[in-house]
């Protein structure tokens, strides 16, 4: 059988073997000891031709309910947002996606400049001084913010609010274990970090306090009060933020955050069953040399012409090895490019408009659900997500919603034992009034939620 990705002909092979001075390619594998030589045939599926492959992968894809064919109210860290058509067109410029890390700056100016622009846009949105070129995702970025804080303060206690994404907290716990750090979770009150509990937990041993803004329940945390508590003990103030929300909300940098992390998925990155997305990591100038991952800097060439290079590499694993600030090497560059293109397309006006539409639509949804007698679990200010109480399981409700072409919200009982039968609903700019009304009507009509008192 011949393969379209393998250009070697029998004639090529013959000539190459001659040049090497051997009879068969087997000779090249003689250094693999007999006992470990794999002699069978790999028991994997047989090769498919291109048309067969498209059919089989199409079959698998069709088994999934997607958010193009359904109105989705599912968020919880991953959102259905407007993606300008040009994002995909530009991403498919193969000089971007088939390139490696820009180690040779003279032939990587395109990628380097795009990342420099990404860094700038993340700084603008977060109100921070320095942003890196990306992290794997918001969860690992948050964990690395915890590690950086511990290293910087030489303290071992990380304080994190329970209103931070449960999966990010889980990742933080795993990373912290590796570093022998203690992670303390602070309770919530009305779906927000309990400022009293926080005050009780934070002490001179605290490396950092980590909160999410807007938090996992969609609510806007009181960053001002929290900042005071953590800076009083000279700990680091770490905020995880949905960058789109920062089109409308005061940036964490303005509240004195030392590190701001998050995921740029809302900007032009497909939900894609949870990845690849695009973590970002932004800090104050003071922490510039402690940042994990790659940074792009501006410089000049021999003729004085502006150009861009990877810089401050003395932080990184390929130079510092076991003393590096992080082990990250490959990151999420292509998704940072996607986010840059989307942020550029939205621009100054669009980011604000889209963020405000999210606020308006989510509040409209809350209002119609309230009018239908649903109880809204929390009363704090929120961005594009809020929590409703149900009389039956979210799973049952979601099954019913799906029959009406709706992907329902997140079942909070899965990660908060006290929030059984609570559903987190996300309403982005993509949801029309009609879809929101339909959600409310279908929910109202469900036998299992009907008996909620009006």
């Amino acid at each position, binding site marked *: 059988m011949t393969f379209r990705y393998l250009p070697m002909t029998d004639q090529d092979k013959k000539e190459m073997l001659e040049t090497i001075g051997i009879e068969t390619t087997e000779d090249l594998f003689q250094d693999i000891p007999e006992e470990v030589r794999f002699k069978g045939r790999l028991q994997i599926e047989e090769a498919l031709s291109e048309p067969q492959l498209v059919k089989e992968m199409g079959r*698998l894809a069709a088994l999934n309910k997607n958010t193009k064919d359904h109105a989705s109210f599912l968020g919880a860290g991953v959102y259905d947002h407007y993606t300008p058509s040009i994002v995909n067109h530009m991403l498919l410029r193969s000089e971007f996606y088939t390139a490696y890390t820009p180690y040779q700056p003279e032939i990587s100016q395109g990628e380097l400049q795009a990342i420099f622009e990404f860094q700038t846009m993340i700084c603008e949105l977060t109100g921070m001084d320095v942003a890196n070129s990306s992290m*794997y995702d918001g969860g690992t970025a948050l964990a690395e913010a915890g590690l950086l804080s511990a290293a910087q303060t030489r303290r071992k206690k990380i304080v994190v609010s329970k209103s931070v994404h449960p999966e990010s907290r889980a990742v933080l716990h795993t990373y912290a274990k590796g570093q022998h750090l203690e992670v303390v979770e602070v309770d919530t009150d009305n779906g927000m970090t309990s400022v009293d509990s926080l005050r009780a937990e934070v002490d001179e041993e605290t490396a950092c306090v980590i909160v999410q803004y807007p938090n996992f329940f969609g609510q806007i945390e009181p960053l001002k009060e929290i900042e005071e508590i953590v800076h009083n003990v000279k700990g680091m103030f770490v905020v995880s933020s949905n960058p789109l929300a920062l089109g409308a909300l005061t940036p964490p940098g303005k509240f004195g955050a030392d590190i701001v992390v998050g995921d740029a998925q809302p900007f032009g990155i497909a939900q894609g069953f949870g990845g690849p997305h695009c973590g970002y990591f932004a800090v104050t100038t003071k922490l510039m040399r402690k940042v994990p991952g790659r940074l792009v800097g501006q410089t000049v060439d021999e003729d004085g012409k502006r150009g861009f290079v990877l810089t401050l590499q003395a932080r990184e694993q390929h130079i510092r090895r076991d003393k590096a600030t992080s082990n990250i090497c490959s990151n999420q560059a292509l998704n940072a490019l996607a986010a840059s293109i989307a942020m550029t397309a939205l621009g100054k006006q669009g980011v604000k408009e889209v963020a405000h539409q999210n606020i308006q639509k989510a509040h409209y949804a809350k209002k119609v659900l309230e009018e239908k007698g649903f109880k809204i679990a929390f009363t704090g200010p929120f961005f594009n997500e809020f929590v409703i109480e149900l009389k039956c399981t979210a799973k049952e409700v979601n099954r019913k919603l799906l029959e009406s072409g709706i992907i329902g919200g997140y079942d909070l009982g899965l990660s908060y034992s006290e929030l059984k039968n609570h559903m987190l609903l996300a309403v982005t700019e993509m949801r029309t009034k009609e879809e929101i009304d339909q959600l409310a009507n279908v929910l109202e009509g469900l036998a299992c939620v009907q008996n909620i008192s009006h």
Partner: protein
Amino acid sequence: MRTEHQSLIFELSKPGRVGYSIPELDVPEINVESIIPSDYLRTEEADLPEVSELQIVRHYTALSNRNHGVDSGFYPLGSCTMKYNPKINEDVARFPGFAHIHPLQDEDTVQGAMEMMYRLQTSLAEITGMDEVTLQPAAGAHGEWTGLMMIRAYHEANGDFNRTKVIVPDSAHGTNPASATVAGFESITVKSDERGLVDLEDLKRVVDQDVAALMLTNPNTLGLFEEHILEMAKIVHEAGGKLYYDGANANAILGFARPGDMGFDVVHLNLHKTFTGPHGGGGPGSGPVGVKADLIPFLPKPVLVKEDDLYKFEYDRPQSIGRVKPFYGNFGINVRAFTYIMTMGPDGLHQVSENAVLNANYMMRRLEPHFDLPFTQHCKHEFVLSGRRQKKLGVRTLDIAKRLLDFGYHPPTIYFPLSVEEAIMIEPTETESKETLDEFIEKMIQISKEAEETPELVQEAPHTTVVKRLDEATAARKPILKYTKQV
């Protein structure tokens, strides 16, 4: 490549221009100040660009024209496996049923995605000879850390809390020792011998009761197969340690040897190398980890299982190291890798490695007369030359790399591994034709001649790129890491 001045997108911005289109708000508008406290409402706008759609398209097209990818030309970047990234993979990954599904949807609405993941993890287990595979890690380094955390959990479950050391060869990639540190270990270096392989005597010397694991790339970063792998495994296992396989070089051995059969306990693969995930200018990648049976209980949560004909994420894993990433890994890259494996099948993958190794050996023998070759045995999928002969003429490996830019090539990996002076690490991959290899070889030979006859031509290279050599020292000394508007 075009050489004119390239504006930053911010420099093209003009108030009032837009590049997007969303519908007018269709719900009754309420005053935001009535719902969000004024301190939390942004007053100063984020200064993002204001540009039209065509300006954006021209801008990114211009940037792409200032970038070199595998589609632009030969990219023999050692250790990175810059093979062709199939176009069909990009199509499949964009199917709405893969691209537009949410990770927290009910499992019965995403069975197709879960089936794909299950079939991929099963294939990777077979290819590596391991018992189970997790697709969660986002890249190679993330896989290393995940694997080491599992090894730690394994030792601790055995009541063994004193294994503080991880051994890495001097030729190891930087992520190996860095991952060891993040996982809470101290890394100890083991020396290579004159043939470029791990020095068994030195290994015996450093292995003791404190060793948690030995991390190894095989073939190693010199492109050489560690022939004594079974003895090494024995030394480490007898001391109670585990063997970790850095799969960055798996392109050499598909269907020829499996880490699981060599005695490795934990393996990561770089799907963005061996299995055609595009590098994307630095990522995203995907770094699945495979383990032997005794490490299965420690796999990160959730574990994807198949029960009857249903796929399920299992969370009840009391000995698990926990989560290493939100959701289930870089799914989109995994879709591409699975599409590739289904394209090649068992015979295709075997041929991949055979051709990759043949290509590398052919290049090595043709270049051997012109450059120093520190290790002369057959190589696997890549080989390392030394530029020390040229260095004596005043031409450094960096200069050779820059000169290659003039001929439209991406240079090989340089100055890695650290154990070789003026290293030039060449990995052609199997997707390149003999004609391409021959043209590149001719240019390398020409450069070796230039080093003797007209060294300044090489020292001053590149001559044809959009920018000349850049001042990296100043970039690091006075960092400018974002655009600031001139007022």
